[in-house]
């Protein structure tokens, strides 16, 4: 059994016990524990069930690479699935539940998949697609859904907060092991700005566990001294519990700081995402030990040798009383020695190398440990827990020589440098034959904008296995980078470490070498996704030669651990099966983040009320207090209508339209874009931007204008007012303000840079209010001030002055067909002006109206709306707007495009009004179908037995579509606008509009101006 040792525990504070629960069971650990070590100390080796076969799974590792120990953590708003027990620090009151089992962890029904394993081979999921079609829906899909999966999805809103932080540094060091610390010291002493990130809570990495000595002192003492020295340097910042998650172009790095995971609290963010710009980056990310592939290597109790050592030294927790060590290298002997020295039993060290190990092996032998050279594990005995191992010859096929009873196995297949961060931005790797691993190729580093490397790698991450060379690498790299960054490195000597006398490792990808198919089917490569040696070999056999394809076919390395343990072993097996050297197979692509980071950290502050900025007009709060039913328009919120208590949206809209047409309505039009255009060449510039002539507009006058893209398509419209000799004010649509301002600046800066024109977007300077209806003039005259009579201010004119005590610019323009003034006042006066109008308008039954009433009134007048009648494929000529296209101008943006053959095609759909025969409202976007059967070879039935021709794509021939459609409260019937083939020539014709429910609406083509066609009402 796994248990807590009486003494030791480098990271533990035994004075502070912490209580926690696992699957509802009360447990106890100490401050400094990870959830993994605390569970082990409580003899909880079984952590969960595997993804596919539901096999029992226990802890394998002690750090970020752990594939099995995933739990549902917390409850309610603090719930988080797939929390890794090895990176979860224990805190008082922690609650954890195991995942992917039913009904319980100990008795799991899904384990039948395990016995059906031979029916669930590599690519099983894809193969189900090839079965008879109904089988997928009725058999495979429900089955896979039920049996696959890890944690539960959170149901409650996340109760925690998150934030971003922008940081800038000369040198960023990722990894706070001895290499990272030495690099920080060397660079810090040189005077450059250093930021060091360490993903765990403590600095120094695994050197203290491995018994390293530096400068004649214990690693622990050297680490403490170095840390103290770094703390004295103002130019060095150290952040622990902060993982370097990804390296991106131009020295951009994401750091993932876990502020409260180890100590939940009420104030402050849980995670902080550091968005770092670094001039140079050093990755000192260490290495990860590889498992060995032997049958039953996934049974709970089989751990990495280094993890066993970590648990004993750091947390005084032994995974078992009797631990068999199996290895292909010298390092694992450290585990055997550590266990023995802690008073635990090591029945045997099984070394796959025929010649055995070096100095460490001698030491182990001296401690009386049995060593079996040239041997391997044929299989592990046990189900939910290791009971023993069967010994065999590594060179053989797995004939059992002897069985050794034990309750834990410590395995080591060698070390793989953590090259992820190096690789994120394009760093290349080379295969190191001696250590059987990929390490960074310094000649092919990630490069920045200048073509020069911006990432360096040091220490074991660089393949420097030996402590002395690791420190030397760190020191020299940091010094040369600091020098390049303008620092002055000290001529200090590198800290010295005794080199250990180690015998080279032996690459072992299968144990034993000639393992049978049966054994291979129990050798796990990817523990989390249940991928075995046999699966990868099957993939190779089925023709998957690319490692990327094999990965996706078998799901090797696709789990939440992203193959940290399985990748190298998997591609070695693939290479073997394909009979090619490992470098030729290559690796899969390393992508950020290094470890999963929370969605909350990515979102930062952008959630709930801060999810998106909401733009508010000066009258926004008034609207909100008066029943506004909001509609998003760009980032603005505009009232769609103002509902009275108990009133429906439809009724409110109808009331607003009627009140405006009968008496007086008010519209908040502040969101309309307002762009000043000024300069000697402003008239010439606007003549190019608009289809009509703006240079001839007289000061004091307004003109409606159309703007097209270079391709001729209508992009925006609005009223232009000439303010003085060389100044125009251009109104744009609400959504067009920023876009059109950008459009103007682009032409001015890239094409017409020699024209004397300046623009300024003054949209937000003004609150703009539409005062609309037969009583519009009366209410304004009541407020007093400037003369707004027909004679003083005619239709399509503007004037500056005072209305009451307000500074006003009054535009006599109408988008409703009524007598109408649009009045701009400085935004700060907007609310007061609006309230003054409401008060003065009371006797006229003043009615604030929203965007829907605005739309209906403009549709009744046949005015087009950008985004309704236009969709990026419509030119002004389609909309019958020839009157707004100047014939006199030599050029304007879109002119030449509009002369292309397709644009002048007489068959283009043209704007018409549509009136249903039964008075109903046409569905928006409905299509009119042709009933001319001579237009297609065949015909189809589309509704109620009616026939229509079919085009070459087997589609019913369409001859038009609805672009705007409303119920007109003024006319008491449905009105619509649409684009129809030869529309204007077909006045009075009836068209068929099939609906989605199978019925058909008939509508007649009419003039689009339904209301006051002569324009008498607006011109009074």
């Amino acid at each position, binding site marked *: 059994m796994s248990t807590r040792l009486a003494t030791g525990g480098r990271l533990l504070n035994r004075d502070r016990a912490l209580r926690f629960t696992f699957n509802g069971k009360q447990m106890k650990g100490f401050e400094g524990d990870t959830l993994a070590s605390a569970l082990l100390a409580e003899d909880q080796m079984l952590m969960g069930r595997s993804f596919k076969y539901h096999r029992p799974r226990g802890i394998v590792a002690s750090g970020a690479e752990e594939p099995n120990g995933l739990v549902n953590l917390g409850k309610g708003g603090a719930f988080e699935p797939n929390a890794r027990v090895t990176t979860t620090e224990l805190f008082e009151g922690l609650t954890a539940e195991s995942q992917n089992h039913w009904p319980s962890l100990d008795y799991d029904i899904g384990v039948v998949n395990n016995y059906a394993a031979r029916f669930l081979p590599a690519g099983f999921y894809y193969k189900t697609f090839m079965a008879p079609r109904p089988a997928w829906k009725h058999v495979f899909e429900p089955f896979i859904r039920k049996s696959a999966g890890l944690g539960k999805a959170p149901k409650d809103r996340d109760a925690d*907060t998150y*934030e*971003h*932080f*922008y*940081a*800038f540094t000369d040198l960023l060091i990722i990894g706070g092991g001895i290499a990272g610390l030495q690099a920080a010291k060397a660079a810090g002493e040189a005077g450059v*700005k250093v930021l060091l990130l360490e993903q765990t809570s403590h600095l120094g990495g695994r050197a203290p566990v491995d018994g390293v000595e530096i400068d004649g002192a214990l690693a622990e003492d050297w680490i403490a001294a170095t840390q103290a020295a770094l703390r004295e340097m103002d130019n060095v*910042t150290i952040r622990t519990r902060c993982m370097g998650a990804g390296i991106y172009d131009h020295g951009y790095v994401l750091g993932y700081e876990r502020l409260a995971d180890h100590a939940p*609290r*009420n*104030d*402050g*963010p849980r995670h*902080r995402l550091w*968005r770092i*710009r670094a001039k140079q980056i050093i990755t000192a990310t260490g290495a990860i030990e590889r498992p060995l592939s032997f049958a039953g290597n996934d049974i709970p109790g089989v751990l990495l040798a280094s993890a066993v050592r970590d648990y004993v030294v750091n947390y005084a927790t032994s995974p078992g009383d009797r631990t068999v060590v199996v290895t292909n290298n010298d390092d694992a002997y450290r585990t055997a020695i550590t266990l023995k020295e802690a008073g635990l039993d090591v029945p045997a060290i099984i070394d796959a190398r025929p010649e055995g190990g070096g100095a460490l092996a001698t030491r182990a032998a001296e401690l009386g440990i049995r060593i079996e050279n040239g041997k391997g594990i044929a299989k592990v005995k046990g189900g939910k827990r290791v009971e023993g191992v069967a010994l065999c010859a590594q060179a053989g096929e797995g004939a059992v020589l002897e069985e050794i009873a034990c309750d834990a196995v410590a395995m080591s297949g060698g070390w793989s440098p953590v090259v992820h961060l190096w690789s994120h931005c394009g760093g290349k790797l080379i295969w190191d034959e001696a250590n059987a691993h990929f390490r960074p190729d310094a000649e092919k580093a990630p490069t920045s904008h200048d073509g020069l490397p911006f990432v360096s790698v040091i220490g074991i991450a660089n393949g420097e296995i030996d402590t002395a060379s690791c420190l030397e690498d760190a020191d020299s790299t940091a010094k040369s980078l600091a020098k390049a960054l303008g620092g002055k490195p000290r001529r200090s000597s590198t800290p010295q470490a005794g080199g250990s006398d180690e015998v080279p490792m032996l690459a072992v990808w299968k144990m034993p070498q000639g393992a049978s198919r049966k054994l291979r089917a129990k050798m796990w490569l990817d523990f989390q996704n249940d991928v075995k040696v046999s699966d990868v070999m099957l993939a190779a056999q089925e023709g998957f030669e690319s490692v990327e394809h094999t990965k996706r076919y078998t799901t090797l390395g696709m789990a939440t651990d992203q193959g940290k343990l399985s990748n190298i072993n998997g591609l070695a097996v693939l290479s073997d099966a394909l009979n090619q050297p490992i470098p030729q197979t290559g690796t899969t692509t390393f992508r950020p983040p290094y470890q999963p980071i929370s969605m909350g950290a990515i979102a*930062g*502050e*952008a959630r709930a*009320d*801060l999810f*998106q*900025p*909401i*733009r*508010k*007009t*000066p009258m926004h709060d008034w609207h909100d207090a008066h029943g506004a039913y909001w509609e998003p328009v760009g*980032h*603005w919120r505009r009232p769609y209508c103002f509902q009275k208590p108990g009133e429906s949206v439809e009724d409110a809209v109808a009331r607003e339209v009627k009140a405006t047409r009968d008496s007086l309505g008010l519209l908040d039009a502040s969101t309309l874009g307002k762009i*000043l255009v*000024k*300069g*000697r060449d402003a008239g010439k510039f606007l003549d190019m931007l608009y289809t009509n002539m703006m240079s001839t507009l007289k000061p004091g006058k307004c003109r409606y204008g159309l703007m097209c893209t270079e391709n001729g398509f209508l992009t925006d419209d609005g009223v232009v007012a000439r303010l003085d000799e060389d100044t125009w004010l251009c109104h744009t649509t609400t959504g067009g303000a920023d876009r059109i301002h950008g459009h103007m600046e682009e032409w001015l800066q890239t094409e017409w840079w020699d024209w*004397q024109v*300046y*623009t*300024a977007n*003054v*949209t*937000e*300077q*003004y609150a703009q209010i539409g005062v609309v209806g037969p009583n519009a003039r009366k209410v304004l005259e009541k407020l007093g001030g400037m003369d707004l009579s027909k004679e003083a201010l005619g239709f399509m004119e503007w004037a500056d002055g005072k209305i009451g*005590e*307000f500074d006003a610019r009054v535009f006599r323009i109408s988008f409703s067909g009524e007598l109408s003034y649009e009045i701009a006042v*400085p*935004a*700060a*006066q907007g*609310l*007061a*002006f609006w309230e003054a109008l409401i008060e003065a308008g009371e006797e006229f039954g003043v009615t604030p109206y929203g965007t829907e009433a605005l739309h209906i009134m403009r549709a009744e007048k046949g005015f087009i709306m950008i985004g309704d009648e236009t969709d990026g494929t419509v030119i002004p000529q389609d909309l019958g707007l020839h009157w707004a296209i100047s014939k006199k101008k030599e050029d304007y943006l879109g002119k030449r495009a509009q002369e292309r053959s397709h644009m002048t095609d007489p068959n283009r759909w043209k704007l018409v009004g549509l009136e249903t025969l039964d008075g109903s409202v046409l569905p928006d976007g409905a299509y009119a179908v042709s009933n001319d059967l001579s237009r297609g070879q065949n015909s189809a039935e589309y509704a109620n037995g009616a026939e229509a021709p079919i085009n070459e794509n087997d589609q019913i021939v369409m001859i038009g579509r609805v672009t705007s459609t409303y119920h007109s409260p003024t006319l008491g019937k449905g009105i619509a606008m649409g684009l129809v083939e030869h529309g204007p020539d077909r006045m009075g014709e009836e068209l068929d509009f099939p609906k989605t429910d199978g019925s058909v609406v008939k509508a007649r083509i009419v003039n689009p101006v339904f209301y006051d066609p002569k324009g008498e009402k607006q011109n009074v």
Partner: protein
Amino acid sequence: MSNAVSALQAKTYAGFAEIEEAGLRGMITLRGDLSSTKVKNAATGAASVDFPGMGECNCVDEKGVAWMSPDELLVMTPYADAQPAAEKIAKTLAKTHALVANVSDARAVFFIRGPNAREVIAKLAPVDLSPDRFKPGQFRRTRLAQVPAAFWMRDAETFELICFRSVAGYVFDLLCNAAQPGSEVGAF
């Protein structure tokens, strides 16, 4: 002017830094050739400060001139003075190619005060705010989370920040959120 109100009417919040909407401020956009003595004098005359260099601003109380872009300045005055000042600048530059616009009402102004004020901004704007890199006298146009903004330092512990009036509420909430007690970073 009793009818004129700022977007948030001097709303405040006290977190690990203090946030305050500064009320109305006179602001004039001046576009023109910044190497022209006439343009320079028009701006500095209105604000009674020296002409700023690229990426800088010179501000004294409510008056100041900020460098916005190679052909744009922001001239600041007390709110009531903005319209007459804009008219005066326009008159001075009547024969010069320039654009002058009173944009006082298009903006909102905030103060962020306290020894850790830098951290509040550094959570929201992609700008190096280390004390040795961002100092009083510098002026930065950037973004604050999802909206455009500009800021400068009134003194070593006070930032002044401007944004569009329509997003004043969003910016205030952003700043308060970033200044939540317990969220200090300790980076500077």
